[in-house]
Structures are given as structure tokens and as C-alpha cells.
């Protein structure tokens, strides 16, 4: 049974959190996975998310923020439905990562950390995503797209637009 009677999370996530905090000798060890899963479900770490996680592991919301603010992949503002993360670290940079990034900026009309007006896309320039062998690479939510060319950017965007239109 959930310890939280008024959870803002889905019943599945709630149940997952209930179990997660029992896995470690100290409840707060579950903090980072909880933040990540909560972000996946809610889209970002809202004040309500932070408050509930703090309550669940018995620390203050300030403690949660102390940790969360360190990680660049945890965000405090909503991202687009599809969060485009373009790698510009050394391998991707040498293979044209910035060109890819520029193309996304141009096509979406937003810059680093921007969100399109319709809330569909957001764009981030990120550090290495571990796909150096297939550089340049990007990550859209949890999907990888690699060995990119500027031309393929349009196709990728189109793919997500139609995915959205299809309601999937």
C-alpha cells in the first residue's frame, strides 16, 4: 500500500517508489532514481514533485534541491514533449555536431534550453551521450539518432511530428 495517500504520481510510479525506498539501508539513497523517474512521468521537477519526494524519504525539500541542482539532466522547468539533446563533445564536434545543432536551432526557431511555442520540442546542447563511434549523435527523450547529416535533421523532426499527430 502506498504511504502517500495523496500522491501526485501515477499508481504504478507510486508503488515503484514505495518499493524503492526499502531497498537501501538509508531511504535517501533512493533520491536520485526517484528524481529521474518522477521527471520521466511529470516532465520536470515541479515544486510538488520535490515536496512529495522529500516527504517520501523524510528529508526537507531544500535537501532535494541541494542534490537535484547538481545534475544537468534534471530540470526544473517543463521541456517539450520531445526533448532534443544534441551532443557537441569532441567526437561529435569533429564530425559536425555544431552543424546539427545549428540546423535544429534554425528549424525549431529556438536556442539552447528553448521550448517551441506549441510545447512539442525542446532543444539542448549536451555533453557526451556515449555514442562517439557513430558521431555526430543526438538523443530525443530516450531514443538515439546517430551518424547524422544536416539533411536527416528535417526527417527526424518530421518523424516526431507525425508521431505526435498519430497520438502515440
Amino acid at each position: 500500500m502506498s504511504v502517500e495517500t495523496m500522491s501526485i504520481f501515477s499508481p504504478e510510479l507510486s508503488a515503484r517508489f514505495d518499493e524503492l525506498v526499502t531497498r537501501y539501508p538509508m531511504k535517501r539513497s533512493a533520491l536520485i532514481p526517484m528524481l529521474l523517474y518522477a521527471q520521466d512521468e511529470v516532465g520536470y521537477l515541479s515544486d510538488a514533485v520535490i515536496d512529495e519526494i522529500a516527504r517520501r524519504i523524510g528529508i526537507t525539500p531544500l535537501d532535494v534541491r541541494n542534490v537535484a541542482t547538481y545534475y544537468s539532466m534534471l530540470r526544473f522547468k517543463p521541456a517539450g514533449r520531445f526533448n532534443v539533446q544534441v551532443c557537441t563533445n569532441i567526437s561529435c564536434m569533429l564530425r559536425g555536431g555544431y552543424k546539427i545543432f545549428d540546423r535544429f536551432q534554425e528549424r525549431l526557431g529556438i536556442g539552447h534550453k528553448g521550448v517551441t511555442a506549441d510545447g512539442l520540442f525542446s532543444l539542448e546542447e549536451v555533453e557526451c551521450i556515449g555514442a562517439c563511434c557513430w558521431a555526430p549523435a543526438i538523443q530525443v527523450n530516450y531514443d538515439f539518432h546517430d551518424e547524422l547529416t544536416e539533411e536527416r535533421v528535417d526527417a527526424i523532426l518530421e518523424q516526431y511530428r507525425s508521431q505526435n499527430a498519430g497520438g502515440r
Partner: protein
Amino acid sequence: MADVTFTVDGKTLTAPAGTLLIDACRKAGIEIPAFCYYPGLSLQAACRMCVVRQEKVPKLQTACTTPVAEGQVFITESPEIAQARKATLQLLLGNHPLDCPVCDAGGECELQDMTFKYGAGESLYVEAKQHREEQKWSPAVYFDRPRCILCYRCVRMCGEGMDVWALGIQNRGVTAVIAPNGGDHLDCEQCGMCIDVCPVGALTSGTYRYKSRPWEMKHVSTVCTHCADGCKVTLGVRRANDGMEIVRADNRDKSGINGDFLCAKGRFGFDFVESAERLTQPLVRNVAGVLEPTTWEKAIRHVAKRFQEIVSRSGTSKNGRGQDGPGSIGVIGSTRTTNEENYLLQKFARTVLKTQHIDHERTADYATFHGLLVGSTGRAAGLKEIAAAPAILLLGGNPTEEHPLLAWSLRSDVRLNHARLYVANTQAIRLERQAVRSLHLADGDYEALVRSLSGDETALAGLPDAAAFRDALAGEESLVVICGAEFRGAALAALMRWGLSRPQVKFALLSDGVNARGAADMGVYPDLMPGYQMLAGDGPMHQEYAGMPVTSGKDYVAMMEAAGSGKLNGLLVVGADPFAALGVADGALKDTFLVVQDCFLTRTAAQADVVLPTASLYEKTGTVTNCYGDVQMVRKAADKAGVKPDFEILVRLAGAMGVDVRTLVPFGDSQGVRADMGQTRGAQAGEADRHAVWLAAHALEPKLSPFDPLAILDEVERLVPEYKLDRLNLFAGNESTTEPGAGFVSVESLLQRKDGVVAAHPGLFDSGLLSEKTSALQQLRRHQEKLTVAAD
């Protein structure tokens, strides 16, 4: 742990194994600099200032995280180490603004001192500095981000020390910043401990910022006037138009019973001294019925004449209602005045006004407490004993709100000494977080708890944890029992009898008012003399107080009733406001000659025939006793033209009434008053004589006046057996704890009296009249109220 021997800079040192090198060195007088290390808090090892060279270890080691072991060899100062520290400073100074000339910390800044020592005067960093505007986190706490050196002292102090956890660190990395819990404001106890531990000027105090330079102030160490814990406080004073003004309060040398600690009241609650509402001239009611300013001479003469008339005549009084003569004047004392003033007040009442009607607003039943301890030794716990006790039982009370220093001491004891704290209370209190066991009692269950502790299985039978609580306590070898003021009379006696039946149980009783314990100890009671001695008897005090009334007088409430019905012809009220406290209607005492000594025009003062403006505790000398029986020295810090200490007023009144003041205050050389002729100034032989000779030669020998409160302290020590004080310790600024066991009094007779206690429960920003008149505390109170409203 076993001692180990190691070498530092060629000196052989010995310390228990596991001691941190930085502590061991500091004890041996070897200074190791550190920003992040702070005694009593967890280790951070963030600043790299304490680096030392350890033999056979390849890299420099941080002294704050190196436990000493047998045979180690360290070097703490060398060109290599100086260079490492200098490099650290260069990094810290990279973005540190050079606003030292206007920074509050300038002159007492640890970063300044270190830069001065290691000389990182030239910066290798040429880019523009990142500036951020300062932020107001609360009326008490301001944050100047660029000055912060990220030592984390404030974060740890707030969390570990205060158990508030209001400060955190965000965006760890190059953009790391100290962050308050409210986003842009602080939702906390506003104690200001973060400001105190900040080694630079990043956290500054709302009451002190941009007001003064540290070296412009004179620092006077005295005792905080706001609650019964009696923290030592250093007041920074500066010359002002009408005397000396207080600009800052802290515990500068971190000495005394409170060490590092001060709460919001102690740190920010001093501006009542400068309040525009402060009375600075005596007021006498004129024929038109209006209080009119007058001179001290006229006011004193007027009061003396009227008192004299009432005392010396007998028969029906002028107004035709009451009786004049002895016993027709009431006296109400204060929990804010010194021991000397309280002692003098009761002596004045009993021997000059010849009345038995004297009392004060009692906030705890010290008579019973004392009565049960008589004849035992070492059963009363001073605060330092509490702070080091292995096990503590806290019954009732709410130290976090009402006794901040006690709460701090208990938290520290649990954290640093692994003490076991047991809490039993009818309300939920914050200290349960530190308790090994806590028991939630229903209202009125305290007596059942005492029965349960005493072995009555049926008591508290409905409470499942009660048996385990009792068994855990039974397993404690020694115990300090601290009880709130709700324990009194029979309940207190039952609790103490249980404790006294076990070896190694000590007691403390909480009260309210900086000298609430002192007022009780000094016999400001209608039925008890100083040291809780009975009125009838033939002890040394009875012989010296020849001719005083020996029947019990009226208590606080009865006195006000008698005065209201015209049966008391005179009433002297010192530092109390019975009209407000008891809800007496204006005009109720119009037939009574009412004299009030106070700092402000209280409701009672507004009704008085004569109002005498008094000095506050920060403007006089004497001693006070905190609720744990620790006696401490009060020293005059501020000075306000026009006001006089209550002590001087009483002596003058007696003098004007034709009394030989020598019988009241044993001043001069007849009764063993000693003056400091330089003896206390150190080991230089002959200095005392040189002073005496020089002073006499220039006709400057001390003329000991009857206004010297320390003359009365001599008498207190002589006549009150509990007050055998360690004078040297006391005058050196430490506490000297009383021994209630040394008293003599019949317990049974004490138990049969009415305790008359009205327990006060002041909050974190409240100390009655004085906090009301302190704008800094009122601002803080409003800030807290806004937060509470926002949270609802």
C-alpha cells in the same frame, strides 16, 4: 582512548588517539588556519587551508581530517605549506569583492587575516568579477553572495547545531551557492547562528550591517536580559548623544555557559534600550492628576515623604479606608532585576517599609524545588552539567521555544557526547527528534507518569510505551531530570522524591525571566526570606533584620486585591506590570499611593503617582541567577542619561526616609567590603601595593559608595548559604553555580504553602515588555507570522 605521542614542528605532543590533528595542535598552542573546520560540527574538508606536511606521506594532508596516531611527524609551517595556503587564498579571492572598507566583517574577517598572513595580495585572475546583488533573506539575515567562500559552516550550523536545516547548497560546482529553504527567504528560527559562524561578511546581521566598524566599539561581556537561560552576551557599545548605545550583540569570545550559542532574542533584541518610548525623567502626578516630569531629587523626596507618613503613623489612613502603620505598604519585585536589587528590595521592604507584603510574579515553584534539595549535595544541575550529562529526562516544557540555550545544549550533548535524551510531554515538541524515547501524555498525566516511574504498574496502564520508558530510565546509571514550570507543589515534590530515592539523579526546574530564580532565591516572597528561610527563627539573618514583621504577608494577587479595595495604602512596584498581568481595571488603585520603577510607561506605570525611570539590565552591574542556578556577572554596557539602576533608587529612598544606609548596604570599610586595588590584574608581584600607594598619594583611593551592588553581594554570600560563590570565577566572566542543598528550611512547611506560580510561555521572539519594545524582534515576529500565514 589511549594517549599517543607524535611530533609537530619538532615539538613532542601527546593526545588521545583519534584526536584530530587540528584540535591537538590548537590545544598545544600551534595555530593551524581553517575556514571550513568548526569545532563541534561535522567535518567538511572543503577549504584546504589546514594543509600540513606529514612525514612519509606523498601529499599535503588536511589537519582537520587527520586523526593523530603514535609516532607521526608533522610540519605545519614551511615555505611549501605557505605556498599551498597562498594558492588557496588566491582561488578564494578570485571572485571575492574588495569591499573590505565597507564590509561588516572588515577588521574581524578570517579571510582578511589569512590574506594578511600569507600575502595573496596580487591576483592572477584578470577577468571581471561576477557581481550579484545582496539578498535580504529575513529582517535578521542578509546574504552577499560574492563574498561567500563556500566553507559550509552556516549550512552545518543551521542543520546540525540548530536542527533547523534551513540552509543548503545548490548548483554544486563552479556556480555553487548557499540557498535558503524558502527560495528567496529564510523560514527558520532566525537565531543568527549562521551570521555568527560566517568567517567572512557573506552573511550579515540586519541589526548591525553598515552601522559600525568592529574597532569603533567597546565590547562588554554581560548576561542577556530576555530569558531564564542567562546566556553570556557581548554587547558592542559606542558613544552616543545621551550616553552609550548598543550596536551589536554576540558572544564574542564564545565563553561561558552558552559557548557559541545565542538565539534571536539575545542577538537582535537590544534596541529597546534606545526606544523612543523609554522613560528618562521621573514623573510625579500633579494636582491636575497628570504625570509631570520632575527632577530625581523632588521625586525621591516626594516618595520618601509619603512612605514615611504611611509607615510611621498608625490608625486610620488619610483616605479613611485602610490602616496606616507597619504592614500597610505592598512591594512587588521583578524577575528582570539583579540578585543584589532583589535582595535589597526585600530588605528595604522588611526593615524600612516594615511590611511583610512582598512578592513577585512567580514563574516556577522554586520554594518546593529548593525545599526538597536541602540537606543533599550535588543534586542540582547547572547548565554545564546538563550539557555534558550522559542521560537526561525532560518532563514538560518546550525548550526549543522557551529555553533556546537548553535546547541547544541538549542537541549538542546528544550529537557530540551520544547522550540519551528521554522526553515526556503533553504536547509534541521539537526535541523529540533527538530523544531516544519519547512519551506523549494526555493533559494532566504528569502525576501518573511520576507514579509510573516510581514503580506503580497501574499508572499510565493505557499507554503502551510507558513501561518501556520506565525500564529504560531505570537502566540509566545517572540522570539529569529537567522539568518545566508545570511541575509544582505536590507534583514536583513527588517527582523529586522519586529522583532523590536513586543515586546520581540531578534536577533542574525551568522558569521565565532572566532572574526568576534569583528573585526567588533572594526571598522576594511574602513568607520566605533570602535562601527560602522562614520568617520566624533566630538565624543570623533574623538577628540582622531585627524588628521585621514575622507573619506571612499577602502574595502578588492578594496584594493587588487589597490595594484595589483600599486596604493597602502604598504600593511599590519594581519592574513588573500587575495591571496588565492580572487585568486590573484602570483607576482601581486610585486610593493607593502607587510608585512604579520601570523602563517604560507600562499600564501600571500609567496609573502610578510616581514613576521612576530605571536602567535596564544592560545598563547596570550586579549578578543574576539563571533557572539552573548558575550565577553570572552582569556588567554595565549601555548608558542612558536620566535613568538610574533600581539599586541606587532604593538606597536613595531609604536615605531620604532618614534611614542610615549603612544598615541597608554594608559599604565602606566597616563590614568587610573589599576593593580591587589591582590584585586581579595578574601575577606581577607588588602591583597591588603600587596601585594603592599611587592612588592614596593622589587622593584617588576608591570611595566605596552605597550604590555599589557588590557590597550587597558580600552580604548575600554571608547570609544565604546557597550562595557560596567562586568570586574569582565569577568576576572573570564565568558562572558560579549555587548549591541549594546547603540551605536550611523545613520541607513540610514549604509544601503546605500556596505556590502561586503562573507559568509564562514566551516564544522565540517574546520576553514580555522588553521584546514588545524591541523593534528588531517585532520585525522578526511579523516576518514569521507572514510565513505562517503563507504556509496555511
